[in-house]
């Protein structure tokens, strides 16, 4: 932990570093694979286009492309960023003097809650912008006016679940990896005992990391479409 002297803000330097690493990795992947763009896609361009189409599919399953097209860039960036963040903690963890430095940035509730809150705030912003104050307010009175308090609670619940789901999954995965790694390094017997579960859990963590990135983007689009579209 580090407090900047000017404003008294607290920084978890591990988070800061890992966020930057994740951002850098995402940027490099995207940047390198979009050099030499061709009408006939090859190699990495195919992969990037597949991701774009994938996110496009998520958006289209929730709202009109006319409304949802503006969230395309947000969706792609989110899914890549969260996926890379989830993967970063898997191969190794670096601990310096009792402090964990290398880990998934998404294994920190502050980071995931920030992303979740950003998404929810964006949904309110676009709800107001696209449907106007009247349409936005009417959204709270449907399907029944007396359910309005629940609707307000729902907004907070959405934020909380969106952020904590991601955090919980990744954090739990990292803890188990750390425990298994601890067992494996404890001795020969521990290594033998921990090897198979460790492999299995790594594979499962990759799966979870992918799924969670997908779920996060999916729910983002669901929440956005609730605010933006009329037919939901």
């Amino acid at each position, binding site marked *: 932990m580090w407090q*900047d002297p000017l404003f008294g803000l*607290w*920084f978890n330097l*591990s988070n800061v570093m890992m966020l930057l690493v994740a951002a850098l990795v995402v*940027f490099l992947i995207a940047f390198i694979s*979009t050099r030499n*763009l061709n009408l006939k896609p090859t190699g990495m361009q195919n992969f*990037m286009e597949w991701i774009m189409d994938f996110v496009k599919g998520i958006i289209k399953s929730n709202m009109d492309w006319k409304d949802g097209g503006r969230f395309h860039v947000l969706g792609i960036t989110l899914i890549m960023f969260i996926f890379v963040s989830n993967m970063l903690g898997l191969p190794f963890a670096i601990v310096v003097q009792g402090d964990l430095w290398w880990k998934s940035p998404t294994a920190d509730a502050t980071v995931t809650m920030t992303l979740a809150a950003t998404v929810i705030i964006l949904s309110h912003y676009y709800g107001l912008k696209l449907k106007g104050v009247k349409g936005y307010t009417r959204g709270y009175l449907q399907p029944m006016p007396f359910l309005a308090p629940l609707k307000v609670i729902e907004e907070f619940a959405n934020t909380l679940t969106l952020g904590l789901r991601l955090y919980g999954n990744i*954090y739990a995965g990292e803890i188990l990896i750390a425990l298994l790694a601890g067992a494996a390094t404890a001795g020969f017997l521990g290594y033998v005992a921990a090897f198979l579960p460790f492999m299995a859990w790594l594979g499962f963590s990759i799966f979870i990391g992918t799924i969670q990135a997908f779920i996060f983007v999916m729910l983002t689009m669901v929440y956005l479409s609730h605010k933006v579209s009329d037919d939901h």
Partner: protein
Amino acid sequence: MFFDHLALGATGEFLNIGDILVTLSTFLVLMFLLKKFAWGPLMGVMQQREDLIASEIETAENSRLESKKMLDEQRSLLKDARTQAQEIVENAKKQGEVSREEIITTARAESGRMKEAAVLEIANERDKAISAVRQEVVALSLLAATKVLEKEISEEDNRQLINETIAKAGEVQ
């Protein structure tokens, strides 16, 4: 434990606003940069391809329609040609029939004419032959008579006798 920093609220009584700001700014900057350097160009290319494919499809559709039109045209031309050929054959047949009739008629008339001419000529020749024979007979009779009588008959009797003979020869005929 080294997980302590990870847990929610593990930082104790203070909230790391700094992390929030860093997360937000990192994400926004990343999004901006990616949009500028990666997604923008990629979307452009994809849009371009979409347009290309759309235009290709349109072209293909157009050429399909055109070829269909041409095929119809060819088909109708072929049909026309066929009817025309039929007509020509029909005409030729008719023409042949007509000229056959004509030739036969002409030939028939010609042969009739030739027959008539032949008959006429034969009659002519016969007449000619008869008169020649008659003259010959007259001359012979005259000669014979002259020889038989030897100037016993006068010139006048002679002539009368000749004429009688001629008349008789005419009856014999």
